[in-house]
């Protein structure tokens, strides 16, 4: 089991947002988590990534059998967890390529593998950038600074491509994208999909799932997973909205 979440109750500033959430993810799977605004999707993503502002009141998260909640966010990242931010952060003065090389080398160091010098790394980076159709000017610019919404989302997927996580959580990576950018992002994600990793797609819309086919679809409402199914469930949600589930639950 790659990830196992048991009775997770978590929130922020003393407010409980997740109220007993259970989820199991195996390697090779793609899970979609859908739900209305404010249902706690980003909270779940941030708790898994280890955001220090969130508090876990009860429950546990096991990652490769280890207690994830005891690990610092950077340790989680080096162990293969990656969250694509719903709102990526701008880092002025640090270039995309510098940042990515530092992150890549931190991971290599952790795994006891060889670090890359700037020249070697740039070769790798150019290959990865092709996946999300990003030119070299993007690599020289400061991280996310002055990027459009769509460019920021593509940059998140570039980071994912470089870091090759075992578990990627994409928090609304599709929102705010036009159809071309959505296709680019989806192609990038699909090419990174493998038997060795798992992806959790957090999304508000069914649209993304036409491009990235999930194995499972879960509906998150009021801090719990209230329904799980396959991709047919997403279509039904598209058609009927979320209310029928809330009523049924």
């Amino acid at each position, binding site marked *: 089991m790659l990830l196992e979440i048991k009775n997770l109750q978590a929130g922020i500033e003393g407010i409980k947002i997740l109220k007993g959430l259970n989820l199991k993810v195996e390697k090779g799977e793609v899970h979609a988590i859908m739900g209305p605004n404010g249902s706690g999707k980003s909270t779940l993503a941030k708790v898994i*990534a*280890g*955001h*220090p*502002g969130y508090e876990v009141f009860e429950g546990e998260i096991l990652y490769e059998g280890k207690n994830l909640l005891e690990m*610092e*966010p*950077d340790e*989680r*990242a*080096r162990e293969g967890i*990656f*969250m694509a*931010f719903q709102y*990526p*952060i701008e*880092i*002025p*003065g*640090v270039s995309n390529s*510098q*940042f990515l090389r*530092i*992150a890549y080398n*931190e*991971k290599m160091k*952790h795994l006891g593998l060889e670090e890359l010098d700037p020249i070697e790394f740039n070769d790798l980076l150019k290959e990865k950038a092709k996946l999300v159709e990003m030119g070299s000017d993007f690599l020289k610019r*400061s991280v996310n600074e002055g990027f459009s919404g769509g460019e920021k989302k593509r940059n998140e997927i570039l*980071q994912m491509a470089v*870091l090759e996580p075992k578990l990627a959580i994409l928090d609304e990576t599709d929102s705010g994208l036009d159809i071309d950018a959505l296709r680019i992002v989806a192609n990038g994600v699909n090419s990174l999909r493998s038997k060795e990793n798992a992806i959790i797609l957090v999304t508000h819309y069914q649209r993304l799932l036409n491009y990235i086919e999930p194995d499972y679809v879960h509906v998150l409402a009021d801090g719990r997973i209230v329904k799980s199914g396959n991709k047919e469930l997403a279509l039904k949600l598209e058609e009927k909205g979320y209310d029928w589930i809330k009523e049924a639950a």
Partner: protein
Amino acid sequence: MITQVKKQNLYEELFQKSFSQSTQPAWLKDLRLKAFEYFSQNGFPTPEDEEWKYTNTAPITREQFSLSVEKKPSTQLENLIYKETQRSYLVFFNGQFIRELSNLEAASNIEIFSFSEALKTNNEILEEKLTKQVQYQRNGFTALNTAFIENGLFLHIPENQKVSVPIQILFVSTENVIATPRILILVAKGAEATLIESYLRSEQARYFTNAVIEISLEDRATLKHHRIQRESHNAFHITTTDVEIGEESIYDSTNITLGAKWSRHEISAKFTKEKAEVFVDGLYLTSGEQFADTHSVIDHLHPNCKSRQNYKGIVDGKSRVVFNGKIFVREGAKGTDAHQSNKNLLLSSNARIDTKPQLEIFNDDVQCSHGATVGQLEEEEIFYLMSRGLPASLAKNLLTYGFAEEIINKIELESVKATLDEALLNRLSVRL
């Protein structure tokens, strides 16, 4: 009080020694005498003086210095010369301009005179210009500098000359010395030049630099001025820079403060005509027990001028920083466009910043803003980097580096920028 008098006796001795050997013309000797008299009576400024409220001069008052006896440095200067200025540098050693150590092969269209040369050939110009902008009465430091004027530098960029190579002025000093460099820079009509003023010292010598630089830009002139203060960490340093800017001229300066145990930079920029632009930006990076002070004044006396001031600070350890930026917009200065910003990162709870932006407007038709912040790194930014696998300390140091880069990136000269990046990354223990 008693120690104060004793220390002035000390400077008295040094002054008499320097003055008695002088072969300078009467007007200059007279000026030096008056300046020293002023210093004897007033000493260094004290915190009662509003401009020195947060700046304690006692650490300098306590020290003893001597005049230089050596005429040449014992070490090689080559590795202190930037790649871009290999054939266009001027050297001050222990406060005196030394032509024999300088090289201007690549900048043949500029004129330089040491004061002793200028007094032979250009006596009137020097008499007319020297201390016109920075009078000895400004404070004890400018008085002391004036009292010790010996071999300063007069740098003249003649009319319409575009100097294609940057010019480096390098200052090096040795143990115990009081260095009082004095420079006059005249950028004539339509001329353009880039200047790097660099105080560099890798060893841990204790000395005192007290520099005064008077810069005058005539009409349609451009001067890019990079000031790099990387004195030894046992050194005391003060520079008084005064700039006058003529019509449609541009003065663009970047002031980096990394070194010295105690330092202050006073910079005043004054528009003498219309439609000119001034940029006074800077970065100070302090740690340990350093003290670093920046006092700037931008004076809008004439219409339609623009000024920008962007200072950033990274303040760590037990260091102390003072920033005081004033913008005056005078009555007649219609259409003034003046903005000032001072952002500080306070990295340690034992460090301290006193920042005071000040805007005084005597006129309605203006666009002005100013602001100062003192803060820590953003939690969300730290988390973002950590979520990519960077340990907390590396994440913080990388963000601090990024914060400083906005200013360092302004410096277009590759090797100057590279050495600053290296110093910054070393200080932050980041490997890029």
